[in-house]
């Protein structure tokens, strides 16, 4: 009945209650959506990086990331590549031969990394094939076909089917030159990646290196991000002599930004709720002030101060939860809608590409964040109720009945 009384009291002044519910709902809706956009942006950065080149897990020879010498290839790399494919939870693997090189055109030169791949394997691990702006993904015949990024093509003044000269050190230390034909030009969301990665088929690269087949990197895609830790553990146990790293270790800046987005969302929500706290407190103070006589009568007839405190607390919590649920539901629906359609932030494309994020952001908020938010709303309501409830329990019944 106390709950009924609190609920009915909440609706005594409909206009007042609607205003505060609306302000809570709007505040939460806005902050949820903003948070979801940030989270979506962070998620997009992670996904973009994983799909573009990072993959979920990478295997290298120990020390390779510090010293990217061509001779630092994975011992028995192809066997390990084959074995990795059969580890439960692994979706696809791709072996990469990595060679630091200098790319030259008739007008300019630029330092690049040649990524030797088996196109059929790489297609299952990265999405470069789907980001081609011109040309094909190693279809057709031709000598030394390569795929380069649009940024590199622009820097070197090259076009599709242009010739590009790559110079690099061979396994034996000799300097090699290769004239390659551009068969495809890709464009990812990262200009940095586009200007420094040249893709070549492994057989061509091995021929140019005049070496036996060798790979420096095994990129592993897992069936889901949830299963990644299991696969990681399995690989780490199976290959203790190799460097097995997740994308978080390989690109800590991406992991940091992704984590920061979650923190920013909580901070933003906290600030909104902190601002709302004063509005709710004010509303409840007004509600108590208007009911001094009634509360005095309730205390007079035998309602203990603890129950009066609970009643005001319940009213505040009910009011806040109504607004909170309205905000969370509308926020959730908006997020679901924009998550489906995406939000086009191409107006800020250049800025976003610097961070390697997609210009189409799909807002996203994990379920635990909704639950945490509901807890935050209740905590805000309880805090907001303290002062009004404190005032209510200090009402002197005789004075309240006589004066008000």
């Amino acid at each position, binding site marked *: *009945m*106390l709950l*009924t*009384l609190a609920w*009915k*009291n909440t*609706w*005594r002044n409909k206009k007042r209650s609607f205003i505060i519910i609306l302000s809570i709902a709007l505040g939460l809706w806005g902050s949820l959506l903003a948070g979801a956009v940030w989270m979506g942006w962070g998620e997009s950065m992670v996904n973009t990086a994983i799909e573009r080149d990072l993959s979920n897990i990478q295997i290298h020879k120990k020390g390779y990331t510090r010293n990217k010498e061509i001779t630092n290839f994975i011992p028995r790399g192809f066997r390990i590549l084959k074995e990795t494919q059969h580890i439960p939870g692994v979706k696809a693997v791709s072996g990469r031969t990595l060679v630091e090189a200098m790319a030259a055109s008739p007008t300019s030169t630029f330092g690049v990394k040649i990524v030797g791949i088996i196109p059929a394997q790489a297609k299952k691990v990265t999405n470069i094939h789907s980001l081609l702006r011109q040309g094909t993904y190693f279809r057709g015949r031709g000598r030394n076909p390569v795929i380069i990024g649009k940024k590199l093509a622009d820097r070197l003044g090259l076009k599709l089917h242009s010739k590009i000269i790559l110079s690099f050190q061979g396994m034996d230390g000799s300097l090699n030159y290769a004239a390659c034909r551009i068969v495809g030009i890709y464009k990812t969301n990262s200009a940095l990646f586009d200007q420094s990665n040249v893709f070549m088929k492994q057989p061509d690269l091995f021929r140019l290196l005049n070496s036996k087949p060798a790979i420096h990197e095994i990129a592993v895609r897992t069936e889901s991000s949830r299963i990644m830790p299991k696969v990681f553990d399995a690989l780490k146990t199976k290959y203790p002599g190799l460097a097995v790293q997740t994308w978080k270790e390989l690109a800590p800046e991406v992991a940091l930004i992704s984590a920061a987005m979650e923190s920013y969302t909580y901070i933003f929500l906290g600030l909104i709720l902190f601002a709302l706290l004063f509005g709710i407190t004010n509303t409840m103070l007004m509600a108590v002030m208007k009911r001094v*006589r*009634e509360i005095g*009568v*309730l*205390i*007079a*007839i*035998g*309602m*203990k*101060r*603890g*129950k009066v405190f609970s009643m005001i607390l319940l009213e505040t919590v009910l009011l806040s939860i109504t607004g909170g649920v309205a905000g969370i539901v509308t926020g959730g629906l908006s997020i679901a809608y924009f998550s489906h359609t995406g939000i086009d932030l191409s107006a800020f494309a250049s800025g976003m590409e610097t961070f390697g994020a997609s210009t189409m952001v799909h807002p996203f908020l994990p379920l635990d964040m909704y639950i945490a938010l509901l807890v935050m709303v209740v905590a805000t309501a309880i805090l907001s109720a303290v002062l009004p409830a404190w005032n209510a329990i200090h009402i002197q*019944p*005789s004075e309240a*009945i*006589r004066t008000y």
Partner: protein
Amino acid sequence: MPLIELDNVSKTYNTTAVPIQAVKNVSLKIEKQEFTAIVGPSGSGKTTLLNLIGGLDKPTNGSVLVEGTDISTLKPDALIDFRLHHIGFVFQAYNLVPVFSARENVEFIMLLQKIPKAEREKRAIELLEAVGLGDRIDSRPSQLSGGEQQRVAVARALASRPNFVLADEPTANLSHAAESLLDMMNRLNRNYEMTFVFSTHDPRVIKRSRRVVTLEDGAVVSDVTTAA
């Protein structure tokens, strides 16, 4: 042992520059089942005296004993609990909970006493029927006339099965309904053996009271038992 015993009770308010002595050295005994009116002009201390009897105010001097318990020494929560179980209140402005129906208003005090739901509902309906509002149990205060609201207030006061009911100017806001309310209170006094103590300056109420205590400037100037 008298139901209520005031021994040399005084009450001084120090809220203004000049202290106001609202009640001066009042000694009074009220027995069970009495129907007592505290009368006097405005400002004579009637409401203060009722507040002291009801434990809503503490005396500056003297003691207020209800069934032998000195309520002026009780701690705040114990005093609230004492009021809940021993005293029924009827106020001049009815003071019902506006968002509750008549039945809920009567039930609420029993809820505070932790009486089971079925018992609460049964007793609330019985009481509302006893005050002649059996057909208005689901009406909210705003849907009831002043007289009807005061009847609900009386039913609420009786719901906790108190030892006595204190009514502060119960007919002050009533015109035509005053006499029927008094008849009802008289009936309840007899049928339920309920003690009523009320303040009034309404001659119709004074006429029907069996004991009339008159106050002037906070002091008892007469205490008359009539044949009413």
